């Protein structure tokens, strides 16, 4: 049959020929088929190179820093005087500032975020939920520099009106504003966790005579706890890495203090201060930038890994 066809249509290639030609693999289509996967693989590898790039640059310069400043002095030093005659590079004031601002932020974002999540997932009607949720997401889309401006020119003066002893740059105001910034993140992640609790469990409790409030606290929140904790940890990680709000509103005092009415510097704000100015490449203060950035990177990485671990390990399966 095939032979007959070939004789009949001399000028047209037979299907057989076409298949044979395709198997040869010399035409454009099959070359494309071979090149594209390689190309896409190389593109996907960019994300890995980004990670390698971050770790490599931070590590190399951090090692250089620790050749000049002993590791112990860096991690246990309570004095940070990079510009003085006898410079001291203790990172504790920065870690202290970072932790305190994050605690303030979480004191705002934690309760309000979880209450928002409860309202949206347990109490609000579908219509209310659909109006409120996108509006909350606007809050997450506001650039951090705008929050910084708000903290510095509105919240701080407001606080100072009530408590005149508060300094013009203090850790309290950026901490509070940072909290507002993190609310949508905690609310939306916790709400996801709560809505994924099966309705049968709620109905069971309701049928036993529990009120909605009791259902929320005795059934829904315990069942969604892993997701809620993960959202908290991610919120903390976000607060630790936040830069512009604290840079603008908390000043650059490097005192080791627990007084939230005073100026404190966070790790991120220190990086901004040093990189934005007077540090010539190769000086110890320049390398300290990388050591602090490395500490920051490790902090947030651990938090993110912890969040993932919590939400995987302690997830209740239904």
């Amino acid at each position, binding site marked *: 049959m095939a032979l007959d066809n070939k004789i009949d249509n001399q000028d047209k290639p037979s299907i057989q020929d076409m298949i044979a030609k395709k198997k040869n693999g010399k035409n454009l289509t099959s070359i494309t088929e071979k090149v594209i996967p390689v190309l896409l693989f190389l593109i996907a590898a960019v994300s890995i190179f980004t990670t390698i790039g971050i770790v490599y*640059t931070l590590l190399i310069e951090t090692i250089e820093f620790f050749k000049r400043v002993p590791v112990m002095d860096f991690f246990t030093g309570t004095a940070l005087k990079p510009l003085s005659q006898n410079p001291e590079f203790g990172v504790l004031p920065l870690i202290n500032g970072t932790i305190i601002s994050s605690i303030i932020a979480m004191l705002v974002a934690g309760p309000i975020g979880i209450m928002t999540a409860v309202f949206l997932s347990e109490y609000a009607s579908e219509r209310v939920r659909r109006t409120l949720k996108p509006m909350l997401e606007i809050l997450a889309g506001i650039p951090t520099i705008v929050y910084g401006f708000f903290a*510095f020119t509105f919240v701080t003066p407001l606080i100072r009106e009530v408590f005149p002893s508060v300094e013009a740059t203090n850790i309290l105001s950026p901490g509070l504003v940072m909290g507002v910034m993190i609310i949508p993140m905690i609310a939306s992640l916790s709400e996801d966790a709560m809505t994924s609790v099966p309705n049968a469990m709620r109905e069971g409790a309701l049928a036993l005579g529990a009120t909605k409030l009791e259902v929320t606290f005795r059934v829904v929140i315990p069942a969604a706890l892993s997701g809620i904790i993960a959202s908290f940890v991610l919120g903390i990680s976000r607060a630790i890495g936040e830069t512009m709000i604290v840079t603008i509103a908390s000043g650059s005092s490097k005192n080791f203090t627990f007084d939230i009415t005073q100026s404190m510097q966070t790790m991120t704000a220190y990086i901004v201060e040093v990189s934005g100015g007077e540090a010539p490449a190769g000086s110890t203060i320049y390398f300290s930038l990388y050591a602090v950035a490395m500490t920051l990177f490790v902090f947030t990485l651990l938090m993110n890994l912890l969040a993932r671990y919590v939400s995987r390990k302690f997830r209740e399966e239904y």
Partner: protein
Amino acid sequence: MKYVDTNQVQKNMNSRLIKNNILKSVFFLATIFGLIVLAVLIFRVIMQGASWINMDFLTNKLSTSPDRAGIMGAILGTFWLMLVVIPVTLILGVGTAIYLELYAKKGRFQGFIQTNIANLAGVPSIVYGILGMTIFVRALDFGNVVLAGGLTMSLLVLPIIIVASQESIRSVPQHLSEASYGMGATKWQTVKNIILPAALPGILTGSILSLSRAIGETAPLVVIGIPALLIPFPGGIMDKFTVLPMQIYYWTIDSSLVEEYANLAAATIIILLVLLFLLNATAIFIRNKFQKRF
């Protein structure tokens, strides 16, 4: 014989219901707390900055004198930055998503890239700034130009567009690509002609969202080193530049020296927020208009 004391039950019930109702209001107040802050923030910024916005402010060059200062340079800088970020993130983001969803064998390596992307999304933006300063500004010696800033921003927002594109590609139903294979199309032909067009609305939405993140981000550019008072306009990707958020930053921290700078910062914030609003509105429009339900 009565098994249940009705009065007692009634009494207990009442207090429990009251508690429920009170806390419902508390939860509602907590929900709108964020919105109230948002309203105050926007109201405050508009009150302070709206009267400063006029043609001169939009078209003038930067100046130390508040009355003559304009943000044309920052607007152009933001524009040039977008011109770098859009193609780079589209190629890298969509390429990675196609590879992960359609080409990579499900296994350890694919899982590794996926975890890596999730971790990159959690890296603070300022760390990307340090990466950009070390690699693009110093090692490759671009200097603090648009290209260096744009590449840094691209890496920063890459996880957003990758994840969005992946979700979009995943939601293209199997039977479309199977029909394409059944017609004799090769894999790449199927990807190019069937899957990508169907996934395009989701990809565009994701890329606009990542773009608006790049436009509002400040920290990486501070580290890269953007001059505080840059007079000449940027004319290409190898020029020094400033962007809207950087201008807000400098005017805010200098507002303790010159009071009017705070108003200029507020006016610039209005422009930035309008720009972001337009971008997001476009994203929502694309999502509603072109998203097909299969």
